[in-house]
């Protein structure tokens, strides 16, 4: 088993509103290992996004620590900390600045982290686009001229541009059509070993998780209920909530229906 890339120890997050406190995450600990894809599964209010934001350093945890390569990540992150952890967002419509070209959005990552010589950067941008399956001359286009799937590919290229180690995938395909979703997921799967990436995959879609993630962590109402290797968790879901989630999955074949209903009742081996 590979060593942990990122460790979350006893992380809690409480949001202070004017007249009350809203706990979003309660004493959560887990780690993400180098080269794996850890899926974080749950419904709205589960704390998935809070976990992502803590790891990305959007805001600091109320309690607990987050370690990267065994080093604690500070609350105020320097540029170097930013580079290693990148995000692919859910909404392809807003993830790219509509007033800047695709190339400019990618160039920003290179400029900020001084990757490559200034002269080489347009070349690097083109290479990055090709790596995510887009023609290099897309650099001149504005996001309005791109489809949802193409925008998500650009977002992936942006994460690659930073030479990031951990990519947080926040429902990256949930607003895409099923054919496009399949292609984008495929791309992500291919990039992972080639670029030595580690994924934290946030989703509510268990069917995708089953085929895409190495390990799964199930969250509900800010708590981590269950975490385990995908195969094992889908063979023997321990927690009743996990079973409820599985029972709600819409399936397209009789065979799946049988498996799902047995899982919902307790597990394949029960």
């Amino acid at each position, binding site marked *: 088993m590979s060593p942990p890339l990122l460790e979350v120890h006893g992380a809690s997050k409480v949001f202070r509103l004017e007249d009350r406190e809203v706990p979003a995450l309660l004493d959560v600990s887990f780690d993400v290992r180098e080269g794996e894809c850890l899926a974080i599964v749950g*419904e*709205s209010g589960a704390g998935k996004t809070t976990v992502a934001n803590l790891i990305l350093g959007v805001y600091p945890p109320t309690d607990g620590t987050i370690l990267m390569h065994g080093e604690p990540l500070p609350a105020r992150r320097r540029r170097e900390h930013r580079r290693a952890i990148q995000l692919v967002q859910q909404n392809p419509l807003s993830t790219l600045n509509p007033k800047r070209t695709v190339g400019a959005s990618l160039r920003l990552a290179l400029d900020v982290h001084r990757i490559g010589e200034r002269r080489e950067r347009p070349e690097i941008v083109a290479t990055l686009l090709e790596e995510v399956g887009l023609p290099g001359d897309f650099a001149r286009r504005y996001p309005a001229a791109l489809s949802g799937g193409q925008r998500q590919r650009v977002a992936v290229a942006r994460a690659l541009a930073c030479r990031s180690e951990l990519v947080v995938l926040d429902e990256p395909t949930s607003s895409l*059509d*099923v054919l496009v979703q*399949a292609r984008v997921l495929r791309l992500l799967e291919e990039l992972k070993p080639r670029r030595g990436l580690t994924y934290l995959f946030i989703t509510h879609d268990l*069917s995708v998780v089953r*085929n895409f993630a190495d390990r799964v962590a199930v969250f509900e109402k800010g708590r981590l209920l269950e975490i385990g290797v995908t195969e094992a968790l889908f063979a023997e879901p321990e927690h009743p909530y996990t079973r409820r989630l599985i029972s*709600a*999955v819409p399936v397209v074949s009789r065979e799946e229906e049988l*498996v799902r209903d047995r899982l919902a009742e307790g597990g394949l081996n029960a």
Partner: protein
Amino acid sequence: MIVPTLDIRDLRLGFRTYEAYVEVLHGISLNIAPGERVALVGESGSGKSVTARIVLGLLQLLRSARISGSVVFEGRDLDRLSARERQRLRGTRMTMVFQDPTSSLNPVYRIGTQFHEVLRRTEPRINEHAARERAAQMLLEVSIDDPDRVFESYPFQLSGGMNQRVMIAMALANEPALLIADEPGTALDVTVQAQTLKLMRELVEHHHTSVLFISHNLGVVREFADRVYVIYKGRIVEQGPCASVFERPGHAYTRALMAAVPRITGGGLPDIGDEPRDFSQPLVVHESGGYA
């Protein structure tokens, strides 16, 4: 002979813009028997939602829309009806459930007021008290047992699932012949979506309501509908009973769709070719299906 609830033949829709004339629907035909649940499944931009809006007579209000073909509802050709007569059908004989329940309810009126408005469509003189009673009865049917609290609430004070149930109750309150459901519950959590769909299915069965169910989610369609039409870029490419379409998809596009869905049983991510190879093949009709 039974009169179908809805019979669409060779429906075409185009929009006249400044630059050109864009055809969105290229002649689709579709029918729904009384009490039948029929799904129209396809990707975004395939023309599902506009079809629903033509049936309701909403798109006809747009001056840029050009519509041809026939839409016969309970034996009456909608094209021959005046705008006023079409309006009279809406909310009484045909109703609609929308994608995002919370934003589909008016944010500045209480649920009770909005429900009253809906009931007034069939009974214009219904008073508040009677409306409350009728509405409470409907809310009980969608498993809301504290109707009074719900009536006093504004939509933003209720959860998405609650609002969805309220919408379903409103949609069925006037005993419509046809319910159009446009991606119902897509904005909700999976467990809530599963619950409300189950509830809706039971209810329409109980009330013997015909349903036109619009969705992009094959799994949801399979669980809800009796029969399915697959639409691709404004053309129906395949139709038949859910069981046979899902077991033996005949059309290249349907097969690709089915293949692209990741399975809960595992087996890895699907491998999808880049180009739609033969998605424009002619219509595939499954023998056991179809209703005429």
